[in-house]
């Protein structure tokens, strides 16, 4: 077991973890933050995407023991974030989810697109979403939701 210190959603956390424990499992099973979903477990599907040190990252191919000193934000930690509120409304309005399994990771990626690429056109939004698999929506609603937030922030 390794002792690791990190911040999760602003709260300091110190825990003993097995080195092989994925950050996603640590968040879900030790901290009971089950908003982060686990899908493919090899970095492809994007369901487990969280923010580490302010940047989207896969929590399935990041191990908790390797997050010493890191600041992790999960979907739960973004409840009061203004951009995330905006995105949640847009996702609901544009039918950007059905089963919801991909949605936590999708929202973390969407927030990054809104912040980092304010001028993104739809093609760029789709390219940026290539790392988050959704098998319900066909992406049309997701792209529209992100478009809506991008446009509203400009006006």
């Amino acid at each position, binding site marked *: 077991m*390794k002792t690791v210190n990190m911040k999760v959603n602003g709260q300091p956390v110190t825990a003993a973890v*097995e*080195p*092989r424990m*994925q950050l996603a*499992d640590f968040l879900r099973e030790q901290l009971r933050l089950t908003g982060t979903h686990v899908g493919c*477990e*090899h*970095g*492809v599907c*994007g369901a487990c*995407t969280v923010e*580490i040190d302010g*940047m*989207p*990252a*896969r929590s*399935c*191919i*990041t*191990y908790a*023991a*390797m997050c*010493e*000193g890191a600041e992790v934000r999960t979907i739960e930690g973004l409840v009061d974030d203004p951009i995330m509120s905006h995105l949640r409304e847009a996702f609901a309005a544009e039918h950007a989810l059905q089963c919801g399994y991909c949605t936590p990771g999708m929202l973390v*990626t969407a927030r*990054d697109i809104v912040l980092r690429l304010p001028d993104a056109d739809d093609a760029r939004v789709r*390219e*940026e979403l*290539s*790392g*988050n698999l959704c098998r319900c929506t066909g992406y049309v609603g997701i792209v529209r939701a992100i478009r809506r937030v991008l446009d509203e922030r400009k006006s």
Partner: protein
Amino acid sequence: MKPAPFDYEAPRSLEAAIALLAQHQGLARVIAGGQSLGPMLNLRIAQPSLLVGIRHLPELRDVRQTADAVTIGACITHAEIEDGRIPDPTGGLLPYVARRIAYRAIRNRGTIGGSLAHADPSADWVSALALAGAHVTVCSPRGERQIAVAKLLLGAFETQIGTDEILVSVTIPRLSARARWSYYKICRKTGEFAEAIGGVLVDPDNGIRRAVVGATAGAPIVLEGNAALPGCDVAALWAANIDDPYKRQMFEVVLRRAADRIAA
């Protein structure tokens, strides 16, 4: 899946990291961003007994510039290169390639040195940095040595890097203002590992005419001189024992498309 058990150490210095590798005689693996090794651990394709973390070592994030080259620390991420936060001596090749590696969440953690050391033949830096004529510096208890990226891979997931050596930096030569490059890959889905990679670089002021064919079964194929130019002589491809006609077709196509983009 969950990985098989492994131990983890985060040594305080490069020397300590190298000492750990030497002590474990090939049973330890270096991990930086873990974006390529992580999937292999989770799928239990890789089962090292010890992972030596180097991501936190500041000496592996150094960037040095000289008149002829830029040297990038091994732990610089793809996203940093994509965003232009690192000086680019190639007239745009590095950020172009970086932006097309996997997905942003991967690029935020995956490192240039880690990608090369992992040596997946389909990985972008293996081909793109061979095209750029880059070399890596590796460090061991015996000191430092340099290896050309074009010669780094011995095969898939196999490199010239010894079990007690760590790839510490990548040195990329400066191209002239007249240099032109192209980089084209076939992926079945955006961000997926490439099925075939083609690159062409022409830099008349530095006497470079070079083409690269990547995502082969092993090291990229590097063609120098006239063989590298538009309408590429693809005989070298067949000399490299690519006997699957489907693969051959893809390699021919990426090479032609890369060459067409240079000509355009």
